[in-house]
């Protein structure tokens, strides 16, 4: 690996450079439109928004790498957040609430993973159905009345800083590094890429693809539960729509970040760039005074444009 001559063609074509150029460009545009946005405090508050999506996107990246997509983000986040808040209120102990939310994360992941891996249900259909189930589960569990609120620890995570950086952003970076390590340096990571490229070859190589898939869905759902808890810290209280906006932009961020929508290629570092780009675009839209509905239209358009531009490479199969 040492002292390789730099291949400039490859650098220009690389996803990394494209992402950096987009980030710097969008940042400068937002700064020109609204000079206040160049303030460090604003940068930090943008990063705080990024960290929720970023942690959700750990799950989304892993699932898309296996060739799937998770369309149950909205209520995976909301349901686990509600479980955290309500259990904490009922038991008076934030740790029990946390444990309950984590357990819900694992169970959600097992449910989706078993459906996809063993029952061979297409990931999109399986997760969309799961979303619908979790939505009803949320209403049944709360009986239509949201209970509970953030705890001191969780609020501190979302609002307090260490050396000027919010704890939740630090947590995102730490989880991000762990994810990159998982993908690049572990046998499990290798298996994730292999399954995404060709489940058939993976099977014939003696790798248990089903276990890999279930593992991925469990990690993904636990990450969504973590994001749900952090969001409570950010918002103060749970609400029924807290997860909705993440459904599509989580996929957009992963694809912008250079992960193939067909699976098998990409990584989490790119996704982190994709997350930042999504929020830079959002902030420009806010400066331009475009209403919520308009922003949703733009979000949808971004996904389509990104998919047209790249990420539709050919998949190895028949």
């Amino acid at each position, binding site marked *: 690996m040492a002292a390789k001559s730099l291949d400039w063609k490859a650098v220009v074509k690389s996803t990394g450079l494209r992402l950096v150029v987009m980030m710097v460009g969008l940042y400068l545009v937002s700064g020109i439109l609204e000079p206040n946005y160049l303030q460090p405090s604003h940068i930090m508050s943008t990063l705080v928004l990024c960290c929720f999506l970023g942690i959700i996107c750990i799950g989304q990246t892993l699932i898309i790498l296996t060739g799937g997509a998770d369309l149950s983000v909205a209520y995976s986040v909301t349901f686990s957040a509600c479980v955290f808040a309500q259990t904490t209120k009922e038991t008076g102990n934030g740790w029990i609430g946390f444990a309950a939310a984590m357990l819900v994360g694992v169970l959600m992941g097992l449910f989706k993973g078993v459906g996809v891996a063993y029952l061979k249900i297409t990931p999109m259909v399986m997760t969309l159905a799961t979303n619908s189930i979790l939505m009803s589960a949320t209403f049944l569990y709360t009986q239509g009345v949201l209970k509970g609120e953030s705890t001191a620890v969780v609020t501190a995570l979302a609002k307090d800083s260490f050396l000027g950086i919010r704890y939740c952003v630090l947590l995102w970076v730490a989880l991000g590094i762990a994810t990159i390590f998982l993908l690049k340096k572990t046998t499990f990571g290798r298996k994730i890429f292999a399954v995404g490229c060709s489940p058939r*070859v993976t099977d014939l190589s003696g790798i248990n693809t089903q276990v890999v898939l279930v593992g991925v869905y469990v990690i993904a759902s636990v990450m969504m539960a973590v994001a749900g808890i952090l969001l409570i810290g950010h918002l103060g209280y749970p609400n029924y729509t807290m997860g909705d906006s993440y459904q599509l932009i989580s996929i957009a961020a992963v694809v912008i970040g250079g992960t193939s929508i067909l699976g098998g290629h990409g990584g989490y570092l790119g996704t982190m760039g994709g997350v930042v780009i999504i929020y830079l675009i959002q902030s420009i839209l806010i400066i331009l005074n475009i209403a919520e509905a308009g922003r949703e239209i733009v979000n949808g358009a971004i996904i389509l444009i990104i998919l047209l531009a790249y990420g539709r490479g050919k998949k190895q199969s028949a």
Partner: protein
Amino acid sequence: MKQIIEEGAAGAAPGQETMVPLIETAHISKRFGGIVALNDAQMKCYRGETHVLIGENGAGKSTMVKIICGVTARDSGDIYMEGQKIDINSAQDAQAHKIAAVFQELSLIQDLSVAENIFLANEPRNRFGRINFRQIYDKAQAFLQEIGLDLNPRVMVRNLTLCQMQLVEIAKALYKDPDVLILDEATSALGEKEVKWLFDMMHKLTKEQGKGILFISHRMDELRQVADRATIFRDARYVMTFPWGELEDEEIVEHISGKKSAETSLEKPKGSETETALELVNASKGTCLHNLNLKLKKGEILGIAGLSGHGQVELLHALFGDGEFDTGEIYVDGKQVRLRNEREALSHGIVLIPEDRKNDGLILSRSIGENITMMCLKSISNSGVLSGKKEKGVIADAVERMSIKVHSADLPVGSLSGGNQQKVVIAKALSTKAKIVLLSDPTRGIDIGTKTEIYHLMAQLTQEGYSIVFYSTEMSELLLLCNRVLVFYEGRIAAELEGDQVTEKNIITQSIGVGGGTNEK
């Protein structure tokens, strides 16, 4: 230009000096990144001839025909059709000039029927542009009958055997009624019966209808049967064109390899008389395998023969746990085992090298290194964390042992030539250290040099205590390597040939089901 005219006269068959070639290429060059695939190369094919292109893998044959049929764009050079300069930049251009091609890699759409695939983009439509399905099936049925193929046009391509898919691919090309038909390793998936059908078809096209055929195959005996003239390529360059029969086989090999050929002969490993590595008792599976009894001796190469599609592939896959036997007993080293999935098979020291390296053997878009280590992740990691040092060691060993020609193991495996890809598949399987190796048609579509290397490797492996089950569609390989051959017919072992009984005649007799049990010496 002058040089080419002279050469053309010299290389043409008698009586053809004055004829204009049906298709001609001149000064064709093509680079893929840093690799030169063709360097100022040329070829000519006249009406009424089967012109074979020969050379090792990577010599430039396939690139040449891919340029002619618009799959690959040339960097420079000219293409002429009946003396007229033509421009081919896409598959549509080629089709407009009545050029059709069949490749080893299948291009069929798996979820469409045979008929739809044949007519793809040329479907009969009604006034409103809707595809007329009744007509499509009737027309396909009539067409298949006309060309003499027994295929049901309504069947989904997914449900066909590899051999049948290849036939559909050929039918699809024939339907375009091409003036120039390109067959690039199109016989590699076919059984002997189908090959004969194709050769009859080719004879009709060239000798009766005056079409031109460009034919590429790694099987010398096939070339012998069909070639009128041949062009040799070596290292991306044109070497020579000659009427078939003017050169001896040894001379051809010399021109192909650029060096004198070494006689290939190997000691057939007989295996241990007492130790059995693998045994099957009364094993059956669905409709494809019936009541199989076989013993694999330790250290032998057990040949599996027969026409393609008679259960050989299913047997090897079942032995690797890819589709379990329904009934019967399996013994490994004398202990009864079950093989319900690939992991169980591996745990008993059985590994499969699948016949379809592109779909079953390799992940083409991932690196050579990742592919090699895919089956031995445990041995290159410490409790789940990859060790760069161990990984490099395993890859370096494999690259050296298999003499894989590669600049860097970080390149995608799809960038390698067919022969080197096959070496990666073998390296990947050997990395498991499993001692029972199931080799399913490992030399399909690879060059003579690599084939020989694989034969020597197999012989070497038996010395190291490996036992090999070897299925091949190429009889000469079985004759070369196997002391014992099982001939399959309709999912049964029609005959077990041993020692002197292993002859071409015996294998053919048994594989068409007329052996009747006794074997001639």
